[in-house]
């Protein structure tokens, strides 16, 4: 192996590692030092990075892995009690019992900024992961575990404890869980609960209790709740944010822009409805809307006007 090939191999390792999830300040410092060490290192890295970046275009080739509509059961709940604060109770068959110090209460607030995400282990051993621009408050007491989802999207992996219900509050809505994996996403007063694993019970004051099984998603708006069944692929795609990607499947550019805008302070603005209706397939890094726009520019022939905090796109 030549000296140049050695350097390229090292540069390729760095390039790949930087794109994996476990990148941290320490590794960044080591990477900076390696780049600083020699111009040859920098050149090798730039060259590979440029080639790898060009291959981003390949994401446009992603074929939909499933048909969205086919086979999806859709049940609509009638609007029984309009404007009544709905209490949703999710229950699951309990497992192991955890020991807690009686009477002890700890209140904590966790916040992620735009573009950040954070995984935490709560005092009871449950794991949560906050997506971009999210806020939760937690209160772990002797007889109850309570989480307020003030905004954003959170993944819950609840440690079973039948004696200590796990309650998620979304505004006036109340979600109680006794153990499973699920995601709650809140957009102002609308929210959705997606069950990734386990069986949960869902109660609302405006409707009869329902059992939500794995793969079912409750979509709640001001006056109704729909339950939609999603495939494993759809569920996996929807939590792509946990590995830093957004997955689109025949998604309109309007929705794509709205998704990217959750992750960036630079907001994509679509100038006209015709452009907004274009559809996108593919997997894209959630933290780089500019890279996505460059791609859209090249593939869809759109014009992009980058004004810093606003990226205006038009046909």
């Amino acid at each position: 192996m030549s000296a140049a090939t050695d350097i390229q191999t090292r540069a390729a390792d760095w390039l790949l590692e930087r794109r994996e999830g476990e990148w941290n300040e320490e590794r960044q410092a080591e990477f900076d030092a390696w780049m600083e060490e020699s111009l040859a290192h920098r050149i090798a890295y730039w060259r590979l990075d440029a080639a790898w970046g060009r291959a981003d275009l390949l994401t446009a080739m992603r074929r939909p892995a499933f048909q969205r509509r086919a086979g999806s059961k859709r049940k609509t709940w009638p609007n029984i009690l309009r404007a009544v604060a709905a209490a949703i109770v999710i229950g699951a068959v309990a497992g192991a019992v955890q020991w807690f110090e009686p009477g002890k209460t700890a209140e904590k607030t966790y916040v992620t900024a735009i573009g950040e995400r954070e995984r935490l282990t709560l005092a009871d051993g449950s794991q949560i992961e906050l997506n971009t621009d999210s806020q939760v408050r937690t209160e772990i007491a002797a007889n109850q575990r309570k989480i307020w989802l003030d905004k954003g999207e959170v993944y819950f992996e609840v440690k079973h404890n039948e004696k200590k219900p796990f309650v998620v509050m979304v505004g006036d809505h109340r979600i109680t869980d006794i153990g499973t994996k699920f995601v709650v996403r809140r957009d102002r007063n609308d929210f959705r609960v997606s069950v990734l694993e386990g069986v949960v019970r869902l109660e609302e004051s405006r409707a009869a209790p329902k059992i939500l099984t794995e793969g079912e998603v409750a979509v709640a708006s001001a006056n109704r709740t729909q339950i939609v069944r999603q495939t494993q692929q759809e569920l996996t795609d929807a939590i792509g944010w946990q590995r830093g990607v957004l997955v689109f499947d025949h998604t309109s550019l309007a929705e794509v822009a709205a998704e990217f805008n959750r992750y960036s302070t630079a907001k994509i603005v679509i100038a006209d409805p015709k452009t907004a209706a274009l559809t996108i397939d593919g997997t894209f890094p959630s933290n780089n809307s500019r890279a996505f726009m460059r791609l859209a520019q090249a593939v869809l022939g759109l014009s992009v006007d980058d004004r810093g905090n606003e990226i205006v796109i038009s046909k």
Partner: protein
Amino acid sequence: MVERSEISRDDALSRPQSGPMTASELEAWFVREVLPLEAQLVQFLRRSWRNASDIPDLLQEVYMRVCEAAQKQIPVPAKPFVFAVARNLVIDHVRREHVVSIESVSDPDAVETAAEEPGPDRSAIARDELRRLEDALDRLPPRSREAMVMKKVDGLSRKEIAQRMGVTEKTVKWHLNEAVRALADILYGPEGSA
């Protein structure tokens, strides 16, 4: 006062400028002006140098010399300068090593330095680029291609790729490493433009 956005920086780079460049300016210039010459550069080096296994090192040295010079003053246009560096490098090596005769250094002036033809429209470029990428994928070693598609197209993690391919994460790391390097060789080297 000049607004320093990414766009204005690109504009600034397209005209001659003096003074030292930042690392990211040098990178942008290198990727835009020098890398596209790689295919011709490798062909030139192959014609000029008998031992094919030396080519990666010679190429690296050309890039080093070009970037060192560009740090001080950007050569405009880039192409004649890059090939002059390559020719001088080959001559230096010939003198130092007495391996090949001076006649084996082919005439670098034969490498055309004509101005760029007017470019095709944007969507045609995108289609060409996609075709080139698909072509590049086809040329990758099969296992590396498989790993790269899972990584790039499906957005899977190394762990997930390892599970799907039924190999260790370390093996996936190697396949991906090979894919990254081969991709650059294919996209920029003479094999890709063949």
